[in-house]
């Protein structure tokens, strides 16, 4: 992905398999958010291809990505502030989240996981049932972040891209968020891709880690593998990664 003279993401090639929780880490400016923007259709890649379940989605507009099951959250929670929380969730349900009903416009929707059956279900999954009627601008920022995840879930995705959802959370909230994410992955059989700066928590929960540095992929493997990877230690906050190595040992 090139912006004028700046190559923000340089030949990063990643495969995602169903049911895995992948973390993407890297120092600031490594191109993580640009990578996300490119694979969710917000930016058109200058070169390269994007295949989702065999379909080529390169260069399509974001709504097509959403309809094919790719949902994302944004780094700063972008919710519809004037609408109540439950309408925010219903928005996704009414557009990319629509599925064929059993008897054409009547009956239950087919092929929808039980947890995502309706707005109330999604709200209870993410834990915001008690603020359902409040306008989205009136809830706290960490609740707004949960609402972001809820809105992404409302599109009944197959792959969920989480962009720094843990930024600014306390230790306890971080654990809860990580538990929620693994629960989403397990119950809904999603691929969850998680960009994060809180490397410690990430490494405890993910199955696989991709490390980006200055636009290039420098490592791709399980957490234990990348902790020992010399490229990673050299490029990225070497001390922190070594400390985690100490912890995990």
């Amino acid at each position, binding site marked *: 992905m090139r912006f004028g003279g700046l190559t923000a993401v340089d030949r990063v090639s990643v495969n995602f398999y169903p049911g895995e929780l992948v973390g993407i880490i890297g120092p600031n400016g490594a191109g993580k958010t640009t990578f996300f923007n490119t694979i*969710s*259709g*917000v930016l058109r890649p200058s070169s390269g291809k994007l295949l989702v379940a065999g379909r080529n989605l390169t260069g399509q*507009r*974001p*709504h097509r*990505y*959403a*309809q094919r099951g790719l*949902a*994302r959250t*944004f780094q700063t929670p*972008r*919710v*519809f*502030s*004037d*609408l109540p929380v439950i309408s925010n969730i219903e*928005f*996704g349900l*009414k*557009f*990319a*989240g629509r599925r064929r009903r059993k008897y054409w416009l009547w009956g239950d929707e087919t092929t929808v996981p039980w947890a995502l059956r309706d707005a109330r279900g999604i709200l209870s999954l993410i834990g915001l049932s008690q603020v359902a009627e409040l306008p989205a601008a009136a809830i706290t920022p960490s609740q707004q972040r949960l609402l972001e995840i809820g*809105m992404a879930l*409302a*599109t009944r995705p197959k792959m969920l891209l989480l962009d720094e959802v843990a930024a600014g959370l306390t230790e306890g909230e971080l654990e809860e968020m990580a538990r929620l994410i693994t629960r989403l992955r397990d119950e809904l059989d999603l691929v969850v891709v998680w960009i994060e700066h809180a490397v410690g928590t990430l490494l405890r929960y993910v199955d696989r880690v991709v490390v980006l540095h200055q636009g290039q992929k420098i490592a791709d493997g399980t957490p234990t593998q990348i902790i020992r990877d010399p490229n990673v230690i050299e490029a990225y906050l070497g001390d922190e990664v070594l400390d985690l190595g100490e912890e995990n040992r």
Partner: protein
Amino acid sequence: MNGRQALMRDILVLVGLIGWALVLPHYGSEFAVSMGLTCLMYVALSSSWGLFCGSTRYLSLATSAFFGVGAYTTAIGLGQLAWIEVIVLGSCIAGLLAIVMGAAVLHLRGTYFAVLTFGMAELVRHAISYFEKSASGTVGRVLSVVPEMSVLYLTVLAIAIVSLVLSIVIRRTRFGLALIGIGADEQRAQTLGVNTRLIKITGFAMTAAVAGAVGAAMAVRWTYIDPHTAFNPFIGFQTVLIALIGGAMTLWGPLIAAIVFSILAETLRLQAPQIYMMSLGLLLILSVLYLPGGLASLRWETFRDWWRGTRAWVKDRRYELSGDKERDKQRARRRRIV
């Protein structure tokens, strides 16, 4: 007030409006009917404008282009085609023009969109006057065969009803929700599955179709049209002002504001036309400052809040001007030092 009650209220007001509008020609003077006609015209224009531009926050200044296109369709076609056909044709041509214009301009936002739509309206105006001068050799056109005033009145009333019914219905459908989503956060709506380009072009074309139909109808009111009167940008501005002052996102705001403005326009036009223009501008400034939701958002609480705000302001000024504020500041300063 839940959804069903709101729908009943909307339908009742619509029926009331239709009743009044139908009765007016029988019991009102010719002046009142003329005023009613202008009012209905602006109701149609501003409620269709408000439906698209109010929700999506794309302020379009191109209404005069669509109006003029409709007017010219009547001028050219009224001899050959029937009245209804001419109206429908004017509406379709205006819709097509909007699709072309929208494809070019709708990916821009805010001020760029507003200025470009205005520019395109002027482009259409000059293109038509050039075409008229070179191809047809005329500057304006005279409409010789015009239908009666009652037919005109009923046509404009029908268009206004269509526009209001569209407003009532669309607000409750997925299309209306998509428009609101585009206005709230377009990129977020896109990632949630809304095909924003298609929806924007459709909404824009809808606004244009209503404006074209109104233009096609109103052309017979002035029996002589030229590009200057048909594409008068003031029509576009007045539509925007009425929709904004009434409350662009609401259903009944444009209606209320259109009534207020037609009364104002007709009463002030003879005595002091400049005062009418000034009052429009002044009302817009006041409503943006003190009543951002428009006239439709006026409630009893609003008046109460204004009254309280004014009293608090007066109290502040008295406190300041009588010197008490200075004395209290000095006292606080002394206490802090001590």
